[in-house]
């Protein structure tokens, strides 16, 4: 196994690490894997998860790239003005182009945790070279029930109530900000610029997953049991994905862990599940 660190992208400003399998395990027809930033955590991933995962996948013969999006980790902020999701898609495709040019890869798997999962799904809708997406704890628009679910722990904690009653809770800041936004002057004309347009493959995450599976893509969804993303899967996504063939969709639910898979045994289970799924995708060649 060999690791290379490099700057790539149109401005040579994106920091990436490519993990190559040992020469005897390398097969050009196998898909290459790209891992996308989890929120603002840099390319090593939460708890160094992406490094461990990349090395395990490389040991089984897959080339893996991890990189920082513009303004995240060690990559320079982008000079141009564009939406974050739009840029994430373009930069992920730049990473795919790099692996195609330098490693001869023709098929790709993209994946990530949290916002990394959302970006992976967006780019999968735009790039036909992507044959698999690994979505770990994908973010979703929270429903009221989800918000209550996610705040359950805090509501049961006496310190939360003390903070609320003594005015030190963030709830007050949020409330004040909302009130000010309502009472304050409303932007008019040119000042009220519309938010940047989302990437062309709009629609709900469930729609995008379904379309991806319909064109033959393989999906792997991994959840931390009882977390908001899992709740969204159980209450919304599962129904939307009804009818997707079992060989196109794998769902793993890992218990006793959190959103970033902190306990080591849960990281082990997560990596085992992803490597097993990646092997089946690689075998589809």
């Amino acid at each position: 196994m060999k690791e290379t660190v490099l700057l790539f992208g149109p401005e040579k400003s994106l920091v990436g690490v490519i993990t190559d399998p040992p020469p005897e395990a390398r097969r050009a027809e196998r898909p290459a894997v790209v891992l996308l930033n989890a929120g603002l955590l840099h390319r090593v991933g939460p708890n160094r998860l992406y490094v461990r995962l990349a090395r395990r996948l490389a040991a089984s013969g897959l080339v893996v790239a991890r990189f920082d999006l513009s303004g995240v980790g060690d990559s320079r902020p982008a000079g141009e003005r564009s939406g974050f999701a739009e840029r994430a898609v373009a930069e992920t495709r730049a990473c795919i182009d790099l692996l195609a040019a330098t490693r001869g890869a023709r098929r790709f798997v993209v994946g990530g945790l949290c916002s990394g999962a959302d970006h992976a799904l967006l780019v999968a809708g735009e790039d036909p070279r992507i044959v698999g997406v690994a979505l770990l704890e994908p973010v979703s628009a929270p429903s009221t029930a989800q918000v209550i679910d996610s705040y359950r722990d805090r509501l049961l904690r006496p310190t939360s109530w003390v903070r609320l009653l003594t005015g030190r809770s963030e709830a007050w800041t949020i409330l004040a900000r909302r009130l000010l936004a309502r009472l304050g002057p409303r932007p008019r004309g040119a000042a009220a610029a519309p938010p940047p347009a989302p990437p062309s493959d709009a629609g709900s995450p469930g729609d995008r997953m379904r379309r991806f599976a319909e064109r033959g893509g393989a999906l792997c969804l991994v959840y931390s049991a009882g977390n908001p993303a899992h709740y969204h899967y159980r209450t919304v996504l599962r129904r939307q994905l009804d009818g997707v063939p079992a060989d196109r969709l794998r769902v793993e639910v890992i218990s006793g862990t959190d959103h970033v898979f902190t306990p080591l045994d849960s990281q082990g289970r997560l990596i085992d599940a992803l490597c097993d799924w990646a092997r089946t995708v690689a075998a589809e060649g």
Partner: protein
Amino acid sequence: MRPFFFGETAEPLLGLHHPPSGPRPRPVGVAILNPFGDEYLRAHRSLRQLADRLAGAGFHVLRFDYFGCGDSAGGDREGRLGRWIEDAAVALEELEALAGSPRVALVGLRLGASLAVRLADRRPEVEYLVLWDPVGDGRLYLKELDAAHEVCLRQNARRAAGQAEAQPPECLGFPLPEPLRAEIEAVDLSRHAGAPAPHVLVLTTESRESAALFPGGARPGGSLERERVPGMPVWMRGDADAMEGTLVPVEALERITNWLVRQCP
């Protein structure tokens, strides 16, 4: 900024070189020594911005990952304090070559500050030392880590009863094997009566034992300053969410930059 691997070919370490971007290059290189584990991830953004500020002020800056950490070679269970000090010594040689100057400053955060003191003991070319919330007492530090990990396990165990038992030695997502634990336990900066380098800044963002470090004061002709910066320690896991690493303690970064600029005109 230029990323590269350095050190032994079989076990390369990740380095990130921030060359001087300001109008006046300074003849001193600055090496930044990371904290450990969960604190490393949370502090990454702040230390990257610190490096940018220092480069903007004319310094060559080198950040790097220790063996078994970040992007460097090595499994998570292979990291040892003794090895990390050797890594830092190799990083110093890289920095001296990059800066074209044998004069160096070390900036260490938390456990990185403790390593910086150990390195300064060995390397007289370390003229300037910034210790940011240093871990002065290894036993106390481990107690805090264990307590934070316990809270994390309890929260997770609530979601799946009976799962958080018989864990291997670990702390907040990172292995903490017994040999490393023993090395951390032995960290005791109170053994240093006087300042460990000619010019030392001890910066604290929370009141800990670091205020009492080096009671013997500065070396003859040197300086020892202590500064307190109010605000949330960026490396610490709070009760809000997993993403406190997005916060950057601008005031602390300014103080460190200004101090080094004053010291190295």
